[in-house]
């Protein structure tokens, strides 16, 4: 009887469907940090294997298959190798920053994951536990801020190495990040317009209520995708490392675990970017066509299913990263800049105006975001989606006229062509100053 009373008291004090608070909140946060960090590191280790396997399969090879069954222990062997390797400190390098740089790129890459909600809340006897390490009210702004910090690691690595190739890599990286951050931020404003909140958990919740944002914000999604590739320095935007021209660029002088840190940073950036794409445009942890799972009351099996769903979506984007890496060649530097400033930025600006206008018009017409056409298709979602498809067709038809990326073989006007041909027949132009 006494126990029962205690239990009732306990139940009274801690409602499983109310957010957890007090000391249990602290404990749960610590547990979440440990679990997320571990899972993230293991995922990153296996992403390196996945990258090598996918590249191999795309090139009709087998990939690493010697360490462990089907090569599954390869990441362990790689890690061991990296730890055992000799650390080199170039005598010309500026040591404090040389040592700090890998840390500077490693930490922002990891802490970005803190705000991403990766599953439905988990009810425990102590209350409802959010399945994100910290559900910041300014979640998205935090991501933008921390993602920009990643460039410091690369620039500092490039500068402190005292190596011209590394410095060029660092310079390219900073130029690239600055250029693409602008259009990334603008592309995401449309998401914020639709959800009306910058906290990632409420962005997910509003996607559950009104349909996923990739369709009503199709162009925004593409802009964000391209910018995310540029931000993570992955092909076709891997100019900072550019093996063929810069000999691995900013991490040329690094060896052993310090090199490994840059590698881990790259892959955790990829993971975070994929998780960001999932959260902002593909409903986060939401399971499609199954609203029971996506809404309260919460239950542990809902958490499990949504976690798996989140992993599948993030995994898809990670695969997309690799697939594109092994398909597309690297941009030239002028192409990179022209895509960033002359294509992405104007499109993002115009798109923002058009979407804001459309949302304003829909609100003025009295279409509620949760209204459903024929009890299934969300009206708001469908109207914006159709608008986006029309815009996307326009954008691609207009821009895909040989001008989207300034090509090696430009389409030139007839008069210019005649001039060029005349020049060619005259032979080499006299050198300047003759």
């Amino acid at each position, binding site marked *: 009887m006494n126990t029962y009373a205690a239990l009732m008291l306990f139940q009274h004090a801690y409602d499983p469907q109310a957010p957890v608070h007090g000391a249990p909140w602290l404990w749960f946060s610590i547990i979440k940090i440990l679990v997320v960090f571990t899972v993230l590191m293991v995922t990153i280790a296996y992403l390196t294997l996945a990258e090598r396997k*996918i590249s191999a*399969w*795309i*090139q*009709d*090879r*087998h990939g690493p298959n010697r360490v462990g069954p089907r090569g599954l222990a390869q990441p362990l062997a790689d890690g061991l190798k990296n730890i055992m390797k000799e650390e080199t400190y170039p005598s010309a390098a500026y040591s404090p920053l040389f040592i700090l740089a890998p840390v500077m790129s490693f930490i922002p890459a990891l802490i970005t994951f803190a705000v991403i909600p990766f599953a439905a809340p988990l009810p425990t006897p102590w209350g409802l536990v959010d399945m994100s390490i910290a559900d910041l009210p300014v979640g998205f702004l935090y991501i933008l801020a921390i993602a920009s910090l990643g460039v410091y690691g690369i620039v500092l690595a490039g500068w402190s190495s005292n190596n011209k190739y590394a410095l060029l890599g660092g310079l390219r990286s900073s130029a690239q990040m600055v250029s693409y951050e602008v259009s990334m931020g603008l592309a995401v404003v449309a998401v914020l317009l639709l959800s009306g909140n910058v906290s990632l958990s409420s962005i997910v919740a509003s996607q559950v209520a009104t349909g996923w944002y990739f369709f009503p914000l199709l162009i925004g999604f593409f802009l964000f995708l391209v910018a995310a590739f540029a931000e993570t320095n992955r092909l076709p935007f891997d100019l900072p490392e550019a093996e063929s021209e810069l000999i691995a660029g900013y991490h040329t002088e690094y060896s052993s675990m310090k090199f490994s840190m840059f590698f881990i940073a790259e892959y955790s950036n990829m993971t975070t970017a994929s998780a960001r794409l999932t959260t902002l445009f593909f409903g986060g942890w939401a399971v499609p066509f199954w609203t029971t799972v996506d809404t309260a009351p919460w239950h542990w099996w809902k958490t499990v299913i949504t976690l798996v769903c989140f992993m599948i979506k993030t995994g898809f984007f990670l695969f997309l990263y690799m*697939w*594109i890496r*092994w*398909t*597309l060649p690297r941009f030239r530097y002028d192409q990179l800049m022209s895509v960033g400033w002359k294509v992405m930025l104007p499109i993002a600006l115009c798109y923002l105006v058009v979407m804001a206008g459309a949302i304003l018009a829909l609100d003025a017409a009295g279409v509620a975001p949760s209204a459903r056409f024929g009890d299934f298709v969300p009206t708001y979602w469908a109207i914006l989606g159709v608008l986006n498809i029309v815009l996307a067709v326009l954008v*691609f038809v207009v821009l*895909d*006229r*040989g001008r*989207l*990326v300034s*090509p090696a*073989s*430009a*389409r*030139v006007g007839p008069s210019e*062509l005649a001039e*060029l041909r005349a*020049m*060619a027949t005259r032979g*080499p*132009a006299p050198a300047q100053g003759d």
Partner: protein
Amino acid sequence: MAIQVKVLERPIRQTSYVRAMLKGMAITFKHLTNPHKVTWQYPEQKWDLSPRWRGTHRMLTDENGKAKCVACGLCPQICPANCIKLVPGEDEEGNRYPLVYEIDEFRCIFCGYCQEVCPEEAIHVGRHYENSEYSRAGFVYDLERLMAQTHPVCEMWDPADPRGE
């Protein structure tokens, strides 16, 4: 101005980035799912050697387990790489046999002349290629080692059957 570049006027379908990109991604995905991989899984899966493959040497033995070699000295004579070392000996019955017979597999160019010239069909080049050692000295094969080899020997070029059929 460095405009000495040949500029071609190309149709849109050649200068379009998006279409080329999608086509490329379709191609890579096709290869990704293609189960036919070109890599040979070497230690498990080995190349079929030609019957005329000239590899690691082998000294054949007679029914008594002795080397067939009579130390005539033709093989060190014809060897273009000068990799065969032969010191002849003679037993009390007047039969010649090799006291020392060594082939340096590193110097050898695997021309197969030793096999062609051998009147006793004793020394052969073999259908075998996996020789690895920890030291260079390990590549000098002595008589015992040459006799211990078990791989099939090379079938030399036959004028009656020039294509090896």
